[in-house]
């Protein structure tokens, strides 16, 4: 599979994957993914369901370590160091490559503890109150919750919960934030708030956003990667380019079909060449 690297400067990339693949029970779910993510950029992963977006995301922060049936091959480099090297601490990788999930998953604790829990774990001498306030502030949630920090996080709305999860991720000071369909279960207004938040956070982190929503990818991302399954139901990276160039001049006919909404999950690589 050949694809253009767009114009991403490999030297500014914080996190990069090379020939990355994930298999469950030895059945490949996605393979041959080469991509890089730079600070100050939002990279959207788009493609139909089952094309391997989530598998790639979870390979980037070694979350597959927790699934005994999952195998990751290829390499993932964080600041040039392969995170799958034996001398690398997976827990430290996950702190530096944070992740927010589709369903808001606040801990069944107070709002304060949700943000403080991760931070407390990594540095005990930290001024936690400041970390919590800063995290909530940056997640655009501070004004809404500052008077009820001791309240259970489960009583927040879904949109607030999702922003709380982002605050929680920010609080442990990551370099990269992986977001897996973070607005999928939210109403349009909550989605709008989360999208604004992503644009605000963009300058300080490398953000990787998996989404079903092509328009959202267009609104938020600087670069887009397009995934599709091949004949063996294995996900492939079809195209990786700057958002504008992919939306206005996709190099691959399948990309164009998907972006323009003419084709969905029935797309396959059969009989076409990228």
């Amino acid at each position, binding site marked *: 599979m050949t694809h253009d690297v767009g114009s991403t400067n490999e030297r500014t990339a914080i996190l990069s994957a090379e020939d990355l693949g994930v298999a469950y029970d030895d059945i490949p779910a996605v393979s041959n993914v080469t991509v890089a993510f730079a600070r100050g950029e939002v990279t959207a992963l788009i493609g139909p369901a089952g094309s391997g977006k989530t598998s790639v995301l979870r390979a980037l922060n070694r*979350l597959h370590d927790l699934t005994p049936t999952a195998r990751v091959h290829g390499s993932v480099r964080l600041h040039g160091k392969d995170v799958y090297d034996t001398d690398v601490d997976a827990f430290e990788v996950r702190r530096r490559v944070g992740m927010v999930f589709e369903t808001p998953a606040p801990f069944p604790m107070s709002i304060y503890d949700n943000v403080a829990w*991760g931070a407390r774990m990594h540095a005990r001498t930290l001024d936690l109150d400041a970390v919590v306030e800063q995290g909530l502030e940056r997640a655009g949630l501070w004004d809404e919750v500052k008077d009820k920090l001791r309240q259970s996080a489960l009583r927040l709305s879904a949109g607030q919960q999702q922003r709380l999860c982002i605050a929680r991720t920010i609080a442990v000071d990551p370099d990269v934030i992986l977001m897996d369909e973070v607005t999928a279960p939210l109403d349009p207004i909550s989605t709008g708030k989360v999208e604004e938040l992503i644009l605000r956070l963009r300058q300080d982190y490398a953000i990787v956003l998996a989404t079903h929503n092509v328009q959202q990818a267009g609104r938020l991302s600087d670069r887009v990667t397009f995934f599709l399954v091949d004949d063996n139901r294995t996900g492939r990276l079809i195209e990786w380019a700057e958002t504008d160039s992919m939306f206005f001049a996709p190099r691959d006919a399948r990309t164009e079909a998907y972006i323009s909404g003419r084709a969905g999950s029935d797309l396959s690589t059969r009989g076409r060449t990228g």
Partner: protein
Amino acid sequence: MRPQMRPRARSSAVVRALFAFATVVTLASLTAVVAHVVNTAAGLVAVGGPDASDRSPIPDSPVATSDQTGEGEVIASWTLLESLVRRRQIEREVSALLPEGTRLEFRSWLSLSFVTRGYSPNPLRTGIRGALIGSVWMVAIAVVVAVPTGVAAAIYLEEFCPRDLLRKAMRESVHLLAGVPSVVYGLIGLVLFVRFLGPLTSGAAFGATATRVPTGRTIVSAGLTLALLTLPRIVIAAEQAINAVEPRVRLAAFSVGATRWQVVRDHVLPQAGPEIGAAAILAIARAVGDAAIVIMVGASTVVIADPGPFAAFTALPVVAYQWAMRPDASYRGLASAALLVLLLLVVVLNAAAAVARSRARRTR
């Protein structure tokens, strides 16, 4: 459509009736047990005065003489139902058939003094103090030993076990162990705790032995055996509770860089805790009524002094069993009363489990 409706409705009615019948059988058997125990735990008794003392109520007991108590002996007894329904008839029978001076009185075998009194050869004065203390000791030891061990094993299996195959094999073994009959555990207890670890379980190693000749047939041995019996059930229940912790919370915790132990300590255990507690209480409540295991480990028939951990002991189900085997009616009443206390203990434990469960639901 129409012609098909009737036969289908009929078969569904049959199935529904079968299910209803099964429910009725279940409830009826439970009701029968409780009704029988209550029915025999109280009722009219005919008590012979001192001149009727030649009829010893305990033929096989050498110390059974009524003049020690001065309260007379039970010559005959009737169930609660009989006492309520045929009182007149019973009164006539007593005055016609039983010797002069026989008193007819209503007696509840279950009473406060029954619970607080120790052993007495006179069924009117005996109590279950020693057996109750023995059972409570055993529950306490089982809780202290089996709950932490079982939870730790479940955490290992669910969170730390490195290989999936190993985890499955160990899980199957635990399930197998949960099905092993209690009498087998009793044998293990006898061999392991009473004989092999005798110096420890008798308290001799700590200079704490309560008997002149140190023996491993102590409360500690029985409690540890009870812990062994409940352990697999606690492991299974804890595994299920740990499994029920929302995976997204777990993933989220890992995603901020938490270690396994931090996730278990701060998220898994707090969420699974009440559920585990409830299941553990139920497992122990189930085991506390098991007579076989205690008899195997060597429960005594008679305990005079309040037993300590290293003392010879007896337990509620053993006492109830021994009394139920006696031929005379008064001991049947005592057995029922002892069983009622046991049932009450189990009901209390179940209520505690229910409270734990409702707490678990509220925090979710």
